[in-house]
């Protein structure tokens, strides 16, 4: 009897240790990155690093602005494509689709989520980049802001990155917002329908409104996946250090900067510190967006379960 008690207590401690260890990793990663990016923060101001647009590591000039802008534009474009398509799909799946369609489509979406980034990258190079190169000349002198292609376009561009990323975040936004729609209490629908609203009016005014915080959380989680994606984006955006003037221009996101320059960073002073600062910036963005999304989702869960 005593031995069983002992075993129980011991196992409990061990399990707790595993849980604590896993969760402490976040802090270890953040602290390690901070310690290694400190040298550059000591000699340069944060403003100079974040807003400087020249990137000349050999002369110790590190301006992150083009890279931050690259990350922001590619991610924003991906979200412009992904948000409406994903949410409309999720509404259809949750509110209209019959069981048979759901039993086919939901597993397919899971399958899409499991495809590795590098495969999306190859897909991008084979299909999206040529497509973009094909349509860019159509907008050559269109004068439309952000679309005014500069004549010669390789296709390795902000747009190609945006399309590939959008496909990669579909499954995340769809599966989370689908769950959120499913979590809207049936009474909400009943109340609206009994007042004579049509199905669509019910969805528009009652269901979507109730689900709005959850949809926001789904979007934030999709956004954090997109912003941190490395390989797929790196393969299709061209990696040219400049500020893009249209979506047909090449760009160079933060993640690609880290991945491309790791090999040589040890040979130039402060270079490694600069790249690890880039990693730290990414991690902080993820930290805040994840916390925001989770706080919303936890609140929804509490409301559901009282």
């Amino acid at each position: 009897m005593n031995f069983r008690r002992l075993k129980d207590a011991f196992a409990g401690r061990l399990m707790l240790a595993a849980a604590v260890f896993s969760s402490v990793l976040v802090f270890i990663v953040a602290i390690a990155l901070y310690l290694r990016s400190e040298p550059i923060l000591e000699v340069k101001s944060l403003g100079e690093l974040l807003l400087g647009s020249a990137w000349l590591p050999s002369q110790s000039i590190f301006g992150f602005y083009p890279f931050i802008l690259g990350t922001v534009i590619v991610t924003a474009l991906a979200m412009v494509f992904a948000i409406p398509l994903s949410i409309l799909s999720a509404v259809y799946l949750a509110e209209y689709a019959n069981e048979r369609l759901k039993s086919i489509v939901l597993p397919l979406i899971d399958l899409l989520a499991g495809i590795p980034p590098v495969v999306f990258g190859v897909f991008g190079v084979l299909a999206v980049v040529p497509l973009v190169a094909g349509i860019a000349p159509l907008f050559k002198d269109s004068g439309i802001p952000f679309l005014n292609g500069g004549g010669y376009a390789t296709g390795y561009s902000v747009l190609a990155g945006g399309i590939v990323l959008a496909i990669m975040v579909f499954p995340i936004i769809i599966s989370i917002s689908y769950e959120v729609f499913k979590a809207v209490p049936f009474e909400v629908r009943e109340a609206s329908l009994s007042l004579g609203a049509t199905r669509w009016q019910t969805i528009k005014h009652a269901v979507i409104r109730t689900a709005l915080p959850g949809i926001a959380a789904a979007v934030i989680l999709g956004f954090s996946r997109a912003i941190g994606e490395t390989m797929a984006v790196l393969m299709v955006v061209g990696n040219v250090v400049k500020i893009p003037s249209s979506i047909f221009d090449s760009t160079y996101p933060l993640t690609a900067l880290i991945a491309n320059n790791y090999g040589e960073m040890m040979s130039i002073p402060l270079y490694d510190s600069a790249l690890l600062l880039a990693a730290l910036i990414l991690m902080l963005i993820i930290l805040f967006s994840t916390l925001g999304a989770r706080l919303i989702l936890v609140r929804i869960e509490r409301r559901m379960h009282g």
Partner: protein
Amino acid sequence: MDKLSEEKLFKALMIASLAVVVGSLFVVVAVIVWNGAPALSLSMITQTPKGGYYLGKEGGILNAIVGSLYLAFGSLILALMISLPAALSLQKDYIGKTKAAYYIRLSLDVLWGTPSIVYGAFGFIIMLYLGMRASLLGGIIVLTILQLPIMIRSMEEVIKMVPADLKEASYTLGATRFETTALVVVKQALPGIVTGVILSFGRGIGDAASILFTAGYTDSLPRSLFDPVASLPLAIFFQLGTPFPEVQARAYASALVLLIIVLALSIASRALSKRFMKNIIR
């Protein structure tokens, strides 16, 4: 616009959106199969690169396939050893209801969202600090960190679903918390646990950014934990980066191999979890 035609319009938009989403899956798979299949041959998956392979000469990507399997299995075992106990301790019977569990879950979610390139950079710092060079072990450790949050959170979801009655029945018979957990809860949650494990294996075998600096790359098969090791995602990346069409075609074929492995895993997890379902008490 009256309310009925508005509904019709939006319904059409929804169906169109769903078609784009599902269609994009098929397009991705079709493009990879279409371009990869012609270059795929038996020698590609049974040979290591010979001299001049990256210029278009003889050889295959066996080094990368074997390397990826080593990396994925190694990290899977390590991650499982930490994840299962961690997920079990998040039960209500242990710390599940406490404030601490809330913060543990929150930090795991942040870990889940952290980009793999950040793990790669972190792993590289640690390895420099320890004086390790890029190696199989380094890759395994970084991939383990990558898989931990996925495994723990997905296991926790299924462990949470184990009916309280079942645990109470076990307690009533005099079983300790640990006995109940190990013999009743794990057995009951097994289908979900298996699914979680396979899904995170798929994530582990497909990730490139985290092992870019930590696992290295080599043309030979790995001999020890401390040797650098090749991997499929990086094989694809490097072959695509060469200027030779023959080698690029092999990159497409390698992408097809990776895609087949990942899709097979996904389908296997579905089938396995169905099979394990039979042993469950409802």
